Structures are given as C-alpha cells and as structure tokens.
C-alpha cells in the first residue's frame, strides 16, 4: 500500500542500534517518561472524567426535562441530596452544574484533548525521540492525577462539591455561609485547580520547547503539520493565561481563609455584617476571564488542528490555504487575550470598556470565518473517504459554523444585555466549545488509534456512533437557542416560579430525551475503544495513506520512536494528489529528488540542492 513509507522503514530496521531494553511494569505503564504512554494516560483519564461529567448532565437533564419526576431511585447514588419527597436538592443541582462545567472544560477538554494529542503527536510528527524533558512530562501527568483525585474527593464529601458555577465567582464562592458548596468543597476545588495549573504549565513548557528545539532535520516551521501548529499555539496561550488563574485562585484562598478583602466589600450575610471593605468582586471576574476566554481557544485550537489534518488526509487534498490557516491561528492566539471582558458586559463594567471589547470581540470572528472557508475549499473537489475521523471532522466544522455565528450575537454588547446568562449562551458554548472539541477529540482518537494501539477501531460502529452523536448534539443544543431567546436563565433548578418562563416544558423534555439517546450512543464508542484495543484488526503501517512522520515509525513504536535514525523531512505535509505523482500522497520524508515527475517549479531548484544531503543519508544507511 504505502510503498514509499515501507521502503524507508525497511532500511531503518536494518539498523542494529536496538532500543528495546526491558522495562518493568511500573516504569512502562505508571511512572513512564515515554510521551506515547503519557498521552495514553491522559486519554484514558480524560475518558473516565468524560463519563463522570456527562453522567452529571444526565442527572440534571432529568431534573430539567421532568421536573416532577420521582428521583427516589437515585438515593443509593446521591443519598441525602434526594429530599424526603424524592426531589433533587436545588443546591446539589448547582453543585452538579458546577462540577459538570469544571470537569468538561478543564479535565476532559484541556487535559484529555490537549494533554493526549500534544503529548502523543508532537514528538512523532516533528520527528523527535521524546519530549524535551520526559521527567517534567511525567510530572505533568501526575500533577493532573493528584488534581483529579482531589476534585473527585470533593464530589463525595458531606457538604458537597463547589456549587457556584464553573466560574466560581466570589462572594458566593468566598463565603461558606452563602452556600454549602463554598465550605470544604470549594477549598478542594481550589486545591485541585492549583495542581491542575501546575500540570498544564509543566506540559506546556515541554510542548513549546520540543516544537522549537527538537524538530528533525528539514522540519522547518513552514513544514509543520497544522496539528503541531495548533498544539504549539495552544501551549503558548496556556502558558500565558493559566498563571493569571493561579493568581485569581490564590487571592480567593486568601479571602476565604486569611481574612483579606480582595474580592469582598459591604457584605451582610447570615445576620451579620462582615468586616471586609474595599474589595471588588469584579476584580475576580477580570482575572478569571483573562484565563477563561483564552481557555476557550485552548480547548478549540487542538480540535481544529486535528480537523485540518484529518480533512486534508481523507479528502486526499492539500489543506487549502496552509499559510492562511497558520495566520488565522496566530491571529486567534493574540486576539484571545484581548476580548475577555465580553463576558462582563452587564457586570457593571464601564460602558466605554464595553464598547472597546465589543470591537475586539467581533474582530476575532474574522480569523474564525477564514478557517471555515478554508475547510470548505479543502473539501471542494476532493476525493473524500468517510472514515469515522473524517465524519467527526466534518461534524466539527458544522458546529464551528453554528456556534461561531451565535457568537456574533453575544459579542454585540447590546444583544448580550438580553441573552447573557440565558440558555442562548448555553447553546452557543456547547456547540462551539463543548461539542466541537469533543468531536475533535473523537476524530483524533479514531484517526490515531492505529498508531496508539497498533489495531484498527471498527469502522461501522464508528459510523453509527457518529450519526447518533451528530444528530443527537443538534437535537440537544439547537432547541436551547429558542429557549434562550425566550429568556430562560441558566443555572436554574426549575422555571415554574415564573410565568415568563413556564412555556417550553415539552421542548425541555425533548432535549432531555435527546440527551439520553446521545449519551447512550457513547457506549458504542467505549465498547469500540476498549474492544479494539485488544481484539481489533491489526493496523497496517499507514492505514490512512497519510503524509506525516508518525506513520513512518514502526506500527507499535518503542520508547524512542524510530529504531534507526530519525527520518529527515523534505517537503510540507500536504502533498496529496499532486499532479504527476504515482500515488495520491507523498510522505514528508520522501526527497524531492526522488519525485521529479511531480515537482513544482520552485521545487525543481530545491531538489537540486537536496542531493548532497541525500548521499550522506545513503552512506549512513549502508
């Protein structure tokens, strides 16, 4: 099949520089410094968190769709959070929403997506033996693990986990007397997030260093696959914004435990006036969203990078506008830092600042639009093979359009007056951030599963999984736009207290049922994932006939990735269906001088210069 690639591997294998020293179970699977295993650790932990986070959404969708339902049967699971009369406790509802948001945004779509694929793909695609610092990389996972344990513990304590929304705005999150979740649960939330931030910083430094320093010969920045560009920029965003969240959390810790007044002022609660004066809750909001908005792109960019790669490979076409794609990602990276206050249009912010942030916010829509047009043009006149990964990538582009366009409403400060904190926002971010990134994650898993586990996932199940999930996601989140335009506020346990919000019980029921079906469909994926890991078809060397370097490594790469020398790179990663070429793909490690029949004009010149390196290469191979 992939003739060129196999030839090269064949040569490499003749090398007798053997890497596979025996490793103990612990150093291979647990305290491993191999980026591939660390990637898998992030993936499996992320999937586990995904099950919990989605499970929570099932419980609160039960409440929202069927408010009168008897929940007695959940008592074995939730205990005292089910009231005497068999109803869900309203405070626990808030705790569920908060944990669902925190888990989904940070643990699944930051650690699970970026952690998995940055770790797994960066060394393999840039041609490195491992990350710059394997040890720091290991620490990164284990800090994440500690964070996970702490967050998990908080779910089971008596006063319940944090319950002030995933943004944990003070004073609610600062005052233990305001809500039970702000007692021990909130402390654990803060501790967990501190560990989480440390983990992300350790990982991010590694990704950046590796991309800058460890690229193989010939892998210039203008030849990097878009996946790597996206992981790289994601890490840059994370490195610049997570420390600010750290600061916000630290000040909150001080306010909670040491009597400071960073965020607190003029408060009378529980029958007493607190001594705190001069603080500002708005300060916290600025600090939080300085991370919070870039965070959206931290979960988004890797998904878009994966999509670029999958769509190009499977439509057998170069990604359209490679440089424009990089440019728009750079634009998004920079702009993502100057739009945060669009979450605060009605927080009491100075209206002039509001106008500034409205301008900046709508500017960021432009690079996003460019990306969509480029994806569409990549599909145009392609020869598209619908692997499950392709389907999920196309679905992702659809969500990017749907959710991106509603962003234009919310970025307009006037329209945001009405829509802020309603279900319109819930619809918006679930499409553009939640579902989009989950689809990126799934596309990545389907696409790189053969590399990760040396086996194929079942295609048919993948197809069914896609269609159920794709239709399901639209059936869950599209109706929420109507509910939101009608003004239904979010984080509401029930709407029946208000005449204005008492319609749409039928639509809410429909949404909940759609959610249950969609969640059920995910078991197809779980089954496919774990079953294929052991019983799937054996993967060929290059199952998708792809150009990037990871497919030149052995089917199951050892620690060190390539048994022989690391392949050199001679071209960009998107030489698909090049006119004149024998095959419809030319991998990156094939020298231009070997493909005179398909070289473009400027490549003819390059090919001539290449020869020197080639002979040297040939020598070392004999």
């Amino acid at each position, binding site marked *: 099949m992939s003739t060129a690639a196999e030839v090269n591997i064949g040569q490499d294998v003749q090398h007798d520089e053997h890497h596979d020293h025996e490793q103990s179970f612990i150093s291979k699977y647990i305290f491993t410094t191999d980026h591939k295993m660390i990637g898998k650790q992030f993936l499996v932990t992320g999937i586990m968190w995904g099950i919990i986070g989605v499970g929570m959404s099932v419980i609160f969708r039960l409440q929202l769709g069927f408010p009168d339902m008897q929940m007695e049967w959940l008592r074995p699971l939730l205990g005292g959070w089910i009231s005497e009369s068999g109803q869900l406790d309203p405070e626990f509802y808030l705790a569920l929403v908060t944990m669902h948001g925190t888990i989904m945004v940070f643990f699944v779509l930051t650690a699970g997506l970026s952690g998995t694929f940055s770790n797994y793909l960066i060394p393999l695609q840039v041609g490195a033996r491992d990350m710059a610092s394997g040890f720091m990389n290991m620490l990164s996972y284990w800090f994440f693990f500690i964070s996970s344990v702490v967050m998990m513990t908080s779910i089971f304590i008596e006063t319940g986990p944090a319950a002030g929304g995933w943004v944990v705005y003070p*004073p609610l999150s600062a005052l233990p007397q305001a809500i039970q979740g702000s007692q021990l649960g909130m402390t654990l939330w803060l501790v967990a997030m501190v560990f989480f931030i440390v983990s992300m910083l350790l990982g991010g430094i590694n990704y950046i260093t590796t991309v800058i320093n460890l690229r193989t010969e010939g892998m210039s920045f203008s030849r990097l696959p878009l996946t790597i560009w996206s992981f790289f920029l994601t890490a840059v965003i994370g490195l610049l914004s997570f420390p600010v969240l750290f600061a916000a959390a630290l000040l909150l810790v001080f306010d909670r435990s040491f009597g400071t007044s960073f965020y607190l002022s003029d408060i009378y609660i529980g029958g007493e006036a607190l001594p705190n004066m*001069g603080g500002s809750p708005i300060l916290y909001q600025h600090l939080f969203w300085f991370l919070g908005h870039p965070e959206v792109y931290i979960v988004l960019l890797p998904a878009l990078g994966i999509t670029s790669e999958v769509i190009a490979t499977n439509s057998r076409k170069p990604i359209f506008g490679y440089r424009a794609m990089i440019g728009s990602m750079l634009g998004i990276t920079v702009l993502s830092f100057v739009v945060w206050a669009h979450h605060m249009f009605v927080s*009491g912010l100075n209206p002039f600042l509001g106008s500034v942030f409205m301008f900046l916010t709508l500017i960021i829509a432009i690079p996003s*639009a460019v990306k969509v047009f480029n994806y569409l043009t990549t599909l145009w006149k392609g020869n598209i093979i619908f692997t499950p990964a392709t389907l999920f990538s196309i679905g992702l582009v659809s969500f990017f359009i749907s959710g991106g366009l509603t962003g234009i409403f919310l970025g307009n400060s006037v329209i945001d007056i009405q829509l802020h904190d309603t279900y319109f926002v819930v619809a918006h971010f679930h499409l553009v951030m939640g579902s989009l990134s989950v689809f990126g994650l799934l596309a990545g898993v389907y696409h790189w599963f053969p590399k990760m586990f040396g086996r194929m996932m079942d295609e048919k199940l993948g197809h069914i999984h896609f269609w159920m999930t794709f239709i399901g996601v639209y059936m869950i989140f599209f109706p929420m736009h109507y509910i939101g335009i009608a003004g239904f506020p979010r984080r509401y346990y029930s709407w029946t207290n208000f005449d204005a919000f008492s319609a749409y019980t039928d639509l809410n029921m429909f949404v909940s049922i759609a959610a249950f079906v969609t969640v059920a469909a995910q078991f197809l994926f779980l089954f496919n994932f774990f079953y294929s890991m052991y019983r799937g078809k054996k993967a060929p060397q290059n199952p998708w006939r792809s150009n990037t370097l990871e497919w030149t490594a052995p089917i199951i790469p050892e620690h060190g990735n390539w048994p022989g020398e690391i392949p050199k790179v001679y071209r960009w990663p998107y030489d698909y269906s090049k006119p004149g070429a024998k095959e419809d793909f030319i991998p990156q490690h094939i020298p231009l001088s070997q493909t005179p029949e398909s070289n473009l004009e400027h490549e003819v010149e390059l090919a001539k210069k290449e020869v020197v390196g080639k002979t040297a290469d040939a020598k070392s191979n004999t």
Partner: protein
Amino acid sequence: MFNLAIGLGVVLLLAILFLIFRISSLISVAKGNTNKIETSSNKINGAMFIVFLVGTGFLFFWYSFKEFDNYNLPVASEHGSEYEFLFWITMAVTGVVFVLTQFLLFYFSWKYQYKENTKALFYPENNKLEIIWTFVPAVVLAILVFTGWRVWTDITAPAPENTNNIEIMGYQFAWGVRYPGLDGELGNTDYRVIEATNSFGIDFNDKASYDDFIPREMHIPKGEPVTFNIRARDVLHSVFAPHFRLKMDAVPGMPTSFTFTATKTTEEMREELNDPEFNYEIACTEVCGRGHYSMKLTLIVDEPEEYMEWYAEQESFLKRNPEYLSKVPTELKEVALLKTGIEN
C-alpha cells in the same frame, strides 16, 4: 422483581447486539474486503449528509416560524425596540451565512465523496480568495459593530435629570425595592446598620432618607425614564427584566444602574396578549445559591397619573417604623418628623 426483569432485558439486548457485531465483523473478514476503501458505506455516509441537511433544515425553518410568537417575547421598553432591530438584523446576516455554509459543507461532502479512478484537485492556495473572505466578513462585522455601538452608547448614557430613581437590592433570595419618597432623592445606606427590619441599612444621618419608602409592590410609570439603582447585600445577583430587554448585575460594594423607559402598562400588555393574568417579572440571572431560581419580583407599569397617585399614598419607612426615630440625630428630628409626615 421488576428491576430484575429490566436488568435481565438490558443484558440480553446487549448480548444480542454484541453477537450481531461479531458476526458482521467476521463476515467482513471472510469477504476479504479489509483493505479496500468501502465504497458502499462511503456512499451511505455521503447520502446521509444530504438527508441530514434536508431533514434538519426543514425542522429548523418549520419550528422557527411555528414558534415565533412563543420565543419572541413582546417588547415593553424604548430601547427594547432598538434591541429587537439589532437582533433581527444580526439574525438575517448570520442566517444567510449559516444556510449557505452548512449547505456547502454537506453538499461538498456528498458530491466529492470517494470515487475510484478519480483524483482530487491539487489546489493548495489562492491568495485572492483569502483576501476576499477576510475583507467581506470584516466589512459586514464592522457595520454590525457600528450599529451596535451606537445603540449601546444610547442605552448606557447617563440618566437624564428628571429620571425616576428606584433602588433594587438583591439578597438571598429575594429583591427589595426602595423609593426616594417625595424629595426624589434616595437616602444613603450603610451595610453595617442592616438588621431584620432595616433590611436596606438606611442611614438615618441622611435627611434624604426620611421619606424613603419600601412598598409592598413595585410600580413604575409608563413613558418616563426610570433608573434602577442596583446593589446587592450578600453575593452577586443580576436584575433581569426580559420584557424590557434589561439586565444588570447587582454587586456587593459596587452600585450599578440601568436607565430605561417603559412603553406599555401592565394593563395594555394584558390586552395585547389576551392574558388577564399577565405580569411583568424580574428574575435573577447570576447564580447566588440555593434559591437562585426563585428570586422573583413582580413589576407593575402604570399610566403616569395612576403612578403618581400610588406614589403619594405610600408611607415612608420611618413612619411605619417610628422606633427608628431614635436613630435620627437630635438636630434633624424636626426635619424627620416633617418629612415622614408623622406630625402635621
């Protein structure tokens, strides 16, 4: 027993599904089509995109038209109509882009699905196209932003001199309202003197506070500017009056405000909607704890004359709670007695 039966049923179902899966994958191995691109399933997936496009496209238009009156709340404020205008302009622009791009996405997916013996077009870039689709959205967005910005500066402009100041205070889990009384000026407050009766923390050192009243019901006049002076006593809350297209956070330690003009009385709205029970409502849209979902305040919009009448009838806080006279500094006692109307 019943649970057991359900459990068994589920297990059985899963077993059957698993069997089907095994058999079908064994068949595909036997057929030996493992390495070929499966054109049959490729065709089905391609066709599904068209089915999806048509199906959901139909649902989207049908539901949007059918439900229009249900999700589009009637407008009852001056700036509300401007909001509506902006909202629907944005809807029109994004709607066109939405339909067009989704159509292209699914159409291309179907049209350019894999065919043996065809080769994709090698088409890596076209700078002219990139420039066009950077500039066109930029211009469209600039227009949207600019119209938005003009309305925004209008809405957030400082309140006019003659506005009706009303204070709304959020606390766990209700709203309190305070009117300035006949002097038209809200008296100072101090959170340190709050207790059960003086729940606003009215500061009796300030003359302006003596005629302030805290009514049972909230009224506002139609056709006159009204300013909500918004604050919170404990945690964040947010005042949301959907029919007025009004929302503003209530922040402890940082007073906020929102000025608007109501255009329809409660009575008029009842007639328009043909619903004699209708009332304007204020909800809380910033999570504030257990009772967040029940922080309701009913708001009545009157004709200006009715409003004046109602306003004049209200008794000041001090008159209703004369024990607080003891908090009034001696030199101001007389003023207090006069302003509250306790002695005349």
